[in-house]
Each structure stands twice: as C-alpha cells, then as structure tokens.
C-alpha cells in the first residue's frame, strides 16, 4: 500500500512564525504535491514537484515556498504565517505520467493548521 505521511495532524502557530509542514512518501513516486482545502473552495494546488530539487508553482503559491532535497520528502514552508493561511493542508504523490499511473494521486491524511 502506498503511504503518504504528514508529520502533524494538528498544528497551532502564531502570526509571523515560520512554519514547516513535512510530507514523506514510501513508494518512490516522482511527483509530489501540496494542496490546501477550505470549505466551499475544494482543493487548491499550492506547489508541486516532479523531481528532486525541481518545483513548480500551482494556482495559489503566494506566501508559500517548498523544498525537495530527497525524492521521498516534500516540505511546505510558510515564511511568515498569517491568519488567512489557517486551513487543512494535504500532501499527495503520484508516479511519473504514462497512460496508466497518471490516474492515481495518493493523499496523506492532512495537517489542520491554525494561525492565531
């Protein structure tokens, strides 16, 4: 079974703090993603990475950065947390595209971040 593990289930931080959200996958997947989930807005893509040290902006990258130093680990960084970044953050991974594997995106259980 593919396992995508997010380091924290719940996190409470103060405005202005630097926040690290960690994600590890154990299936040797090339692609990794960070989404945030908000009620009524669905899942929105923040950043994704298709290889080590490679990253691309998603639809809402402002206020976030990412790091991928090893294939299995993808970190999301909030340089200076703000209250509007209170959300559920979901990490996902998938194998590199070819006709079949592109069909499967595997998610972690999420980190509920509250910024006070």
């Amino acid at each position, binding site marked *: 079974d593919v396992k*995508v593990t997010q380091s924290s289930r719940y996190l409470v931080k103060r405005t202005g703090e630097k926040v690290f959200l960690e994600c590890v996958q154990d299936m040797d997947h090339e692609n990794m993603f960070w989404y945030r989930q908000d009620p*009524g807005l*669905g899942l929105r893509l923040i950043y994704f990475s298709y290889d080590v040290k490679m990253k691309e902006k998603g639809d809402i990258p402002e206020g976030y950065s990412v790091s991928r130093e090893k294939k299995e680990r993808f970190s999301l960084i909030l340089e200076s947390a703000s209250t509007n970044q209170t959300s559920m953050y979901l990490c996902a991974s998938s194998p590199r595209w070819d006709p079949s594997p592109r*069909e499967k995106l595997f998610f972690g259980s*999420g980190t509920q971040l509250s910024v006070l």
Partner: protein
Amino acid sequence: QQQVKQSPQSLIVQKGGISIINCAYENTAFDYFPWYQQFPGKGPALLIAIRPDVSEKKEGRFTISFNKSAKQFSLHIMDSQPGDSATYFCAPPSNFGNEKLTFGTGTRLTIIP
C-alpha cells in the same frame, strides 16, 4: 487555470436511492476524468475514473457517465448506503500532458436511513 463547476454542493439521499453528482469543465484536451472520495479526517482517495473514448464506466454501485459534447461528467451511486456518506470531488487534469489536477469544490453526500 481551468474552471471546474461541480454540483450540487450538498446532497441528502435516502438509503437505497440513487445519488447523482455533476461536473462541468472547460478544457477539452483531457484524456482522463476521475472522481475522488473523502471521508472525515482522511485525505481524498481515487474512487473511479473514465477516459473519453467511452461514455460510461461502471464499478460495482458506482458509475461515471461522460458527455464529451456537453463537457460534463457525472457520478452515479446506485443503491446508496450510509457508508457512502462522504465528500466527493471531480478532478480533471489542468493541462494535457502534466500531472496537475484541478479539483471541483466538492459535494457533501449524506445517506439517511
């Protein structure tokens, strides 16, 4: 960014009934149309997906219907059960040739006895 419109936002269905959720998209250059299912406290998981060379795909009680000309695809859950209560997302790819998905806003489905 591709626009995805999912409806309804919430749905209550009696046990044994049919649940229907719809998704409309804009970009026609896709070859893959998935539905994801999310239970409380969990991340979404792939439920069923279809390619546009067929108009319908069935897996157990779950069916995807695809209408290419209308740029719509829908999820049908037959004989709905309380265990089907979850949030459902359609997620067509953003751009042909890359792995990004654009998720709909979600439908919260509740099956009542």
